[in-house]
């Protein structure tokens, strides 16, 4: 079994004349947490959008290798197939829950493909076949497990749009996990969280990795989270990779410090201070 789950090779993304990502290569380890960091506008979210099929890359390849050794070229799949066939799930920088549906319903929607099969493409479900009923009960159980895990069991029947911000962030992660992904991509999961919530998030991500063996790729600005949980850090600036390595080695890399200093003084200080 390969040690690499995701291999990004010479990825490029151009919008008209603007090069958002240029010749980027990096690997994400299996059952590892890989962080993608960099100043604002470095092209991190663009990389995510290429991996999760929202953009079609202008060049390069993105290969995902499952546990069974099967490799899928993600750049050849379009939107929903990335999640359905390649089992790559994602969250969004500006939370995209289904606000008018309850927390439980959000997690049920995430199990759409499995439930669709169980409901015999709706027909078995329509007549209320026993096999469908048991599949539905199992799906509710899975949702219940995740709600318990993120501490939202008592708010299962509340509309997702009514939950506090931090709960919404966790619910979105739980929703992504309900698709049973091989690779979980998180776009700034700690944005807007306070210190206590950030710590809880780190714990949640570590437990996801250890219990489910899910590999995680995350974009994050909160350096305390990055330093605490990542196994590997890739640093981007202006669409190219400027450094990569363990959290410690990256933190001391003069190029990284320069990039952050050049971009935003506060962020650079945050990088240098965190973990010391």
């Amino acid at each position, binding site marked *: 079994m390969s040690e690499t789950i995701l291999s990004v090779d010479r990825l490029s993304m151009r919008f008209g004349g603007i090069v958002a990502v240029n010749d980027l290569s990096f690997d994400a380890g299996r059952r590892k947490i890989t962080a993608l960091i960099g100043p604002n506008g470095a092209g991190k*979210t663009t990389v995510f*959008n290429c991996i999760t099929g*929202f953009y079609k890359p202008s060049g390069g390849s993105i290969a995902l290798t499952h546990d069974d050794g099967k490799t899928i070229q993600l750049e050849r799949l379009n939107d929903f197939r990335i999640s359905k066939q390649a089992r790559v799930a994602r969250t*969004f920088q500006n939370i995209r829950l289904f606000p008018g549906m309850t927390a439980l319903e959000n997690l049920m929607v995430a199990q759409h493909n499995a439930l669709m099969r169980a409901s015999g493409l709706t027909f078995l479900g329509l007549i209320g076949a026993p096999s469908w009923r048991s599949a539905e009960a199992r799906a509710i159980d899975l949702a219940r497990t995740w709600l318990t895990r993120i501490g939202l069991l008592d708010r299962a029947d509340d509309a997702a749009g009514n939950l506090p911000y931090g709960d919404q962030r966790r619910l979105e992660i739980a929703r992504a996990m309900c698709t049973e992904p091989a690779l979980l991509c998180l776009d700034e999961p700690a944005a807007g969280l306070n210190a206590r919530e950030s710590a809880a998030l780190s714990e949640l991500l570590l437990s996801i990795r250890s219990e489910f063996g899910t590999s995680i790729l995350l974009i994050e600005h909160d350096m305390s989270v990055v330093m605490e949980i990542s196994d590997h850090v890739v640093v981007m600036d202006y669409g190219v990779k400027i450094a990569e390595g363990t959290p410690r080695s990256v933190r001391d890399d003069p190029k990284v410090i320069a990039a952050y200093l050049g971009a935003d003084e506060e962020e650079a200080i945050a990088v240098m201070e965190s973990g010391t």
Partner: protein
Amino acid sequence: MDYFAQQLINGLVLGSIYGLIAIGYTMVYGIVGMINFAHGDIFMIGGFIALISFLVLVSLGLTAIPLVLFVVLLVSMAITALYGWTVERIAYRPLRHSFRLAPMLSAIGMSFVLTNFSQIAQGARVKPVPPIITGGYTLHEGPGGFVVQLSNIQIIVVLATIVLLALFTWLVSRTRLGRDMRACEQDQTMAALLGVDVDRTISMTFVIGAALAAVAGMMYLLYYGLVDFFMGFVAGIKAFTAAVLGGIGSLPGAMLGGLAIGLIETFWSAYFSVEYKDVAAFSILIVVLIFLPTGLLGRPEVEKV
């Protein structure tokens, strides 16, 4: 070839009328993001007011046709503009920040109101007028005896369209009102914070759109020599089709879309079948939108993830 040239002329004239109506749709859509379903009926009202004011002026003893037409133009623009203003004030302003479907339904209701108001006020029968502007030029006389003609009324329609379009482009790009309109189009809250009177700007948009529709209504009356209470529906749908075809929100797009619909309709009637001319126009709309989902000149919508 002569036949083709004649159809080209006819198509451009019809397209100019559609374009004038389409501008009203596109302006309102750009600024408040709704389909003003009542706009086709505003065009119909414009036609009626032109007809009535013409009749009254002539019977009062005014005989200088150019002067009469000029007065009719002003009267119908003014009164129809007030209709546009009233419709916005009654049916759309209370729903400004409401859910998207509510103003649309309200607009459909307003369209029913205007159609039936005209029917009740002026009767259901078609109102014909004798040709007011006659004469024209023979451009080319073919060997088969087919004559390519450009009538005076056709020249007037196209000229009026060009003049109005120029005036309108100047208004939007050079005046304070135009700047306010563009600001509201981008961000109403921010525009209001910077001192733009949003309510007034939106009202003015409806007023201008209605005035242009009134011109279209008058041109239609002069060109086809009739009005009836139901003409707003079909013309409205076609003009909206034109606005969407050109890329809704884009002013040159509306004109281009109008010309395209006019030409398609005319050529289809001339070469294929008159019965299916509307089917052709709508089918082409659907086909264009499959390949260019935001119309010919519309800005492509970038999906933010």
